[in-house]
């Protein structure tokens, strides 16, 4: 597969495109762009609660693009690989590690009200002080926790 698209896109192209997506959603639909809300739809469907279909369409758009980028860039992440993580840890350790991490993401995003997109990009763009509070907290926590992981793994991760 020829590499039609070379990765990564320059930051000064990628960032503004994300910013314009945020503006576009607000300007056309009056909706606050955020991705963790899409995951809530699955939880709501499982609990028999009403869902917001636009959030699933938004998620569908994201995934279609991700598949397209993987094809155009000749970078499919096929197989049971997960970056450095699967080089360092065996699969039977990676899976519970990722599952626990996933639960923390779900609890935390739900608790804080949004995630890296809903608070990090959209909330900061609407000058929401609550969003900025959440962003500063999760950025500092994530960086600190990553250095803890690095220390525990003896520098392997």
């Amino acid at each position, binding site marked *: 597969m020829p590499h039609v698209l070379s990765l*990564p896109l320059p*930051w000064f192209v*990628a960032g*503004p495109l*994300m*910013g*314009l*997506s*945020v*503006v576009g*959603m607000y*300007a*056309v*639909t*009056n909706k*606050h762009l955020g*991705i963790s809300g899409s*995951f*809530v739809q699955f*939880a*709501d469907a499982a609990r028999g609660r009403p869902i917001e279909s*636009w959030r699933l369409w938004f998620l569908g*758009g*994201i*995934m279609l*693009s*991700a598949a397209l*980028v*993987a094809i155009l860039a000749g970078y499919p*992440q*096929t197989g*049971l690989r*997960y*970056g450095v*993580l*699967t080089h360092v840890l065996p699969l039977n350790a990676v899976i519970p590690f990722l*599952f*626990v*991490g*996933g639960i*923390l*993401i*779900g*609890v935390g*995003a*739900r608790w*804080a009200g949004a995630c890296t997109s809903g608070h990090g990009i959209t909330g900061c763009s609407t000058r*929401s*002080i*609550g969003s*900025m*509070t*959440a962003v500063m*907290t999760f*950025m500092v926590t*994530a*960086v600190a926790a*990553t250095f803890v*992981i690095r220390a525990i793994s003896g520098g392997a*991760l």
Partner: protein
Amino acid sequence: MKRLNLVSLFFGGLFGFAFSASGFNQYDVIHRMLLLQNFRPYLVMASAVLVAAPLLWYLERRQWVTPLGGVLELRRWKPERKHVLGGIVFGAGWAITGACPGTIPTALAAGCLLAAVPAIGMVAGVVLHDAVAERTTDRDPAMGSELWSEA
């Protein structure tokens, strides 16, 4: 077919393109970002906000009428305890998985099968949070859900 859904598909596509083409659907990119070895992701996020904030400010000032949702109303939240406590839990999960909620579906779509694990974990985490929250507060759970779904 609702127009709202099609518009969401379009902007999801645009957002997802920039997101994936920045490598945000790869553990190694996010991990190096959090190790402060790769500053590009911070530049992407900052430039997104720098583009969106003034445009939203202008549209709000003009009392822009959105074609599908009435007069533009930008959502803002006052800082609360939950932003800090939720942020701490979220940050820990982000560090462990090298994935934010955007990374998970985009990694899956790029063929990373293991991203299904945090995906299931995340949905379970939402249900877990609500089960605890609905037990510990006397607030109507449906109302809590409604409040949250704004973001």
